[in-house]
């Protein structure tokens, strides 16, 4: 039972972690990217669309990543080059992906994309030795490729953020754009990069969600995970490890809501609320803690 919940926690954390560590860069560069949701949905949709027609999995992953990058470029072009309102752009992209998916599904005369011929078990990795450890083996082993990749990427992103020029420049651009400009940093370039990293990772999250775990796409299957990732980024203030921890808390909430709802009988439908409400509460608690000494009246607006 407990090992089941913890296994699911890792399972449900994966897409959020990917969105969070990718979205951290945009957060640090002061370009709020709420299009993570749409980029993830696009990764899910494009990967399943390609698998459905070609059966070629590497091509599907590549296509999903490209679709994410294209959305990232669109976002950056409108938001950074044309200086549009990034919140509106983000919502616009979310609507566009879901709109296009609905449109294409309608043309395909179907309410979902499902590939029966490929079994999702081919993506599962059973780690030798570890899988035999009682309890822990059950939790850690048997996840998908992208899940293991995402946990590894937390470290990579930490390195990228604190130990490379890219990371320092992105943080500088976000904190003081003039300071960056005064030493000749091309601020727009680093903002683009920040958005694109997020787009790429979110698209990968979509692949994990749809293709790796279910071989199924239904519209709006991301169910607000992108927004929850943004909440986690806020809670962790853009720090890769901290905000990933918040993503895992969310994964736990989701696992609990799914696993416990089977025991809840008629009230089971209500358990789906838990992740969203929990994240709101966590966000509030983090904010209370952060501003506990603040005596300044007045508000900063994003």
């Amino acid at each position, binding site marked *: 039972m407990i090992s089941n919940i913890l296994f699911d926690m890792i399972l449900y954390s994966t897409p959020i972690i990917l969105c969070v560590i990718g979205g951290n860069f945009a957060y640090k560069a002061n370009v709020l990217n*709420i299009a993570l949701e749409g980029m993830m949905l696009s990764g899910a949709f494009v990967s399943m669309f390609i698998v459905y027609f070609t059966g070629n999995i590497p091509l599907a992953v590549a296509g999903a990543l490209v679709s994410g990058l294209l959305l990232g470029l*669109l976002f950056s072009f*409108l*938001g950074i*080059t*044309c*200086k*549009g*309102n*990034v*919140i*509106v*752009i983000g*919502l*616009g*992209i979310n*609507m*566009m992906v*879901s*709109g*296009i998916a*609905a*449109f294409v599904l*309608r*043309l395909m005369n179907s309410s979902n994309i499902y590939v029966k011929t490929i079994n999702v078990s081919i993506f599962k990795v059973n780690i030798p030795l570890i899988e035999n450890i009682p309890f822990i083996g059950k939790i850690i082993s048997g996840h998908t490729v992208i899940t293991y990749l995402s946990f590894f990427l937390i470290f990579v992103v930490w390195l990228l953020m604190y130990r490379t020029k890219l990371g320092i420049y992105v943080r500088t651009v976000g904190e003081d754009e003039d300071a960056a400009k005064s030493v000749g940093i091309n601020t727009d370039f680093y903002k683009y990069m920040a958005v694109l990293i997020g787009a790429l990772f979110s698209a990968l999250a979509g692949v994990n969600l749809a293709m790796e775990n279910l071989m199924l796409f239904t519209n*709006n299957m991301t*169910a*607000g995970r992108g*927004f*929850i990732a*943004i*909440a986690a980024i*806020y809670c962790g203030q853009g720090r890769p490890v901290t905000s990933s921890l918040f993503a895992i808390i969310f994964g736990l909430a989701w696992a609990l809501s799914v696993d416990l709802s089977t025991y809840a009988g*008629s*009230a089971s*439908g*209500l358990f*789906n*609320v838990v992740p*969203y*409400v929990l*994240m*709101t509460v966590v*966000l*509030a608690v983090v*904010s*209370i803690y952060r*501003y506990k000494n*603040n005596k300044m*009246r*007045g*508000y*900063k*607006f*994003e």
Partner: protein
Amino acid sequence: MTGRKIPLSIINSLMPVILALLIGGIIITMIGQNPFTTYQVLFQQSLFTPQGLAYTLHGAAPLILTGLAIAITFKANIFNMGVEGQFVLGGFVAGIVALYCKSLPGPLAQFICLVAGIIGGMLFALVPALLKKYFRVNEMVVTLMLNYAMATVLEFLTTGIFRDNGSGYVTTPMIPKSVMFPRFGDTHITFFFVIVMLVFIIMYIVMKKSVLGYEMTAIGKNPGFAEATGMRVGNKIVTLMLISGALAGLGGAGYMLSDQYSYTLNFSANPGMGWDGMLVSLLGGHNPLGVLVAAVFYSALKNGSQDINIFTGVPQEIIAVIQSLLVLFLSVKFISENTHVFDRIRSFFRKKSSVKEE
């Protein structure tokens, strides 16, 4: 307002419409249909026949309210993304309350239902508003997540406690005819439209002439200035969010009583009246009069989409695509004194090509 600014803002709203329709046309061509006949069908019925126009106006009523709900917060740089959730909650509450008002006289029952819807919307909006005021929690993230929570709760209630077991699909029981707003003649327009117009006039005065409207504009333009000149930004955030929630809740309740008869899982459709409201508000430049015009335009688009579904081979889902394109283009100010998008785009490409030359 100087004389020069008005045409500018109109161009800023027209350009995205043209661009979005253009790209939509390309998509229509790509699936092998004729974009001109499609657009003709799209607007002819819904704008240029009395019956169709009446239906368009009827459909615009809730959009005007959600549009105003977005406008009043966006104008103050507060992002109430919960308009969608407030709308469906208002509709649901009104739909349930209506069931207990059977024996009351029609107008009283309707009044009670609308008030219930308004209270529902306001309660939803109160949560993020208080979190923002006291703990500085980002209201946008909270409302985005609460929308999902709200949808889940309402789905639970509709499929459980409040399900109409006599029906073949998931829905709450039908509202008795006596509680629904009666239609005017053989049009779809109901008394709800009159209420919306009254609310519109009130909101116009609030946004343009009142002290609150003045403070709202100041908060949106410069929150530091607003605080320093004693506008109590925290309190105003709560006030504006409550007004926004009330408008959205009223919209949902009115939509229920003028159109829907019962709450189904598809009550607000996809992408939802709240999101439509955001588009309407953007298209109208967060200006009450603009919202009115944009709501009618967008209602015509939605209304006409059913016609293209019937009369052409283009699926009506194309409208959601065009809508998102509209939002994307509206995010950018094409022409204004400060931001010359065209110049910037030109210099952007010039920069790129000069890099290549090197």
